[in-house]
């Protein structure tokens, strides 16, 4: 993989949590591998979606990239320079360029702070504006997300869920970041509101040349917003492809199962479809199976899958898959 145009590049990211105390004896000391040697390039100006079931490591990976979790091994580079080990002032300076929008706009805004103060906070922390310039910038940010600048004095409870998510987005763009991670930013919203928030993300991306990492388990929303999609399973990236290609011809059996589980909004097609469920449940990240992590549930697993872990390799130009059988 070339890192030439990668804004953020992760190499060999492994995150291991050691659990102690409070657990039954048999489970003690068995580390949980939240991420296992993940490589991922996020290209400047793209929207990369990260999909997978709960527990697959999506949010852990995002937090490693944001430098809020230090990986057990591996490196993260931002614009080509290694940021894995930096700390203190250098990290704080860097943080201005990374922002996050969370799932729940109810718990990610301080109820006692006016929304203007919430948006002003990052600007103050980074020393980017003060006094009347600060007030002006806060108003600007509110207008950029489709709210009136006069609402700055109001508290979060006076806004609806969709409006609060707009406020969180205004806070994220206040410092003119390069890179925004949206962690399930649409999941708490109604379908009709999701459309508006997707439109807003697109507008802001075009205006400010932003790069997004869009984490979601909603495959329909991902299809609407992303340029490329990375599919995660049990702490690993199992497939990476341009969005249209991933949806039209998924190569990894797990991606195929995920897409097959999405209901199609057409009763005629939907009733004619035979749904074959995945066998069993995802294995525990404390005890991943040998070989391919998916082989325990894979309808096509062969002997080789049980012993030899498949590498994430190029199966077509610009398409990666970690499956022995993918062509």
């Amino acid at each position, binding site marked *: 993989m070339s890192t030439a145009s990668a804004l953020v590049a992760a190499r060999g990211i492994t995150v291991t949590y050691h659990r102690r105390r409070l657990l039954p004896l048999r489970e003690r000391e068995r580390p949980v591998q939240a991420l296992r040697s993940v490589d991922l390039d996020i290209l400047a100006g793209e929207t990369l979606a990260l999909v997978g079931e709960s527990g697959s490591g999506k949010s852990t990976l995002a937090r490693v990239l944001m430098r809020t979790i230090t990986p057990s091994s591996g490196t993260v580079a931002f614009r080509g320079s290694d940021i894995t080990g930096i700390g203190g002032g250098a990290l704080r300076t860097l943080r201005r360029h990374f922002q996050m929008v969370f799932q729940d706009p109810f718990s990610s805004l301080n109820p006692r702070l006016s929304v203007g103060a919430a948006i002003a906070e990052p600007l103050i922390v980074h020393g980017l504006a003060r006094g009347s310039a600060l007030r002006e910038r806060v108003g600007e940010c509110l207008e950029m997300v489709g709210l009136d600048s006069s609402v700055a004095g109001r508290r979060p409870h006076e806004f*609806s869920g969709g409006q609060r998510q707009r406020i969180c987005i205004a806070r994220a763009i206040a410092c003119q970041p390069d890179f925004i991670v949206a962690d399930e930013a649409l999941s708490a919203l109604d*379908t*009709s509101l999701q*459309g*508006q928030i997707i*439109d807003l993300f*697109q507008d802001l991306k075009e205006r400010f040349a932003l790069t997004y990492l869009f984490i979601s388990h909603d495959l329909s929303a991902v299809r609407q917003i992303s340029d490329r999609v990375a599919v995660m399973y049990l702490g690993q990236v199992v497939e990476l492809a341009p969005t249209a290609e991933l949806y039209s011809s998924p190569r990894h059996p797990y991606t195929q199962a995920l897409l097959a589980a999405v*209901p199609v*909004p057409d009763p005629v097609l939907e009733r004619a479809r035979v749904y074959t469920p*995945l066998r069993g449940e995802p294995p525990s990240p404390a005890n991943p199976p040998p070989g391919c992590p998916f082989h325990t549930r894979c309808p096509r697993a062969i002997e080789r899958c049980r012993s030899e872990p498949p590498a994430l390799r190029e199966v077509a130009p610009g398409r990666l898959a970690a499956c022995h059988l993918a062509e």
Partner: protein
Amino acid sequence: MSASILEVEGLSISFGGATRRQLVTDVSFKVERGEALGIVGESGSGKTLTMLSLLRLLPRGADARVVRACFDGRDLFSLTPAALQDVRGREIAVVFQDPLTALNPVLTIGRQITEVLRRHFRSSAADARRRAVELLANVGIPDPPLRLRQYPHEFSGGMRQRVTIAMALAGEPRLLIADEPTTALDVTVQADIVTLIQRLQREQGLTVIWVTHDLALLARIADRVLVMYAGRVVEDAPAAKLFAAPKHPYARALLGSIRQDAPRRNRATSIPLTAADAGALGCPFAPRCAEARDQCRSVSPVLKVYGGDTRAACWALDDDGARGAGS
């Protein structure tokens, strides 16, 4: 004897003292025996309140009035408290969105299921235990005798939801109300739960009401769909008709927002921001409707029958239910 198991006519729900707010207005619908009715609408559209009011489980301060609410020949609103207790769980059971809050964290799963059996059937402890094993096996939980001794936190999200379904079925209900039972789950797990409830419906002749904000899901499971907006029914149609040719502009916008044949968002189809105010004069959807005219802003449209099996409330429909050229 009519084929309807549930008939609701003129249900209205309001909240609060001096400043009463009308949350559900004149809702009427029927559910035929053995059919699956889907109720779709965004948060705050009154879907859940409508369901709760039928079981007389509305929160304090809420006031429900109804012309008729007939379940299997009995008026739900005039039952004695004891008779009501027998209907709840025994004849009408509910599965809620979040299985973790629906289960008691300090009691074993076995204790929670046998409680239902002992209450409704006065079963002996041994019989209840035997039946609980059957119930867990029936919803696809492996190793039921072991699982009965475990606590809710020892189950995954999907398995917990299976447990709440097993509990709901313990009373051998004839009507199952599934209120967003898959919203908190991953898509593959959602598909499993949907397949499970459909199997139960087929094998046990269960009637199901699915409450959801996910219209695509209803394509798979619903025979009829009731579309609610701001506490009113705006459309009620057989699923095939609704998906092929929705009559109400809100239903069309909802369908437009999930159609997969337009992978990249078409901004023209997204619903504008203005939140609905149920108390206002006129059609509640008028502030967001692209086709609203003066009449829509002053007089609320009535729900009219079109083609015998479809109801819709929109001034723009002519007598045949086609979209008129406008007056």
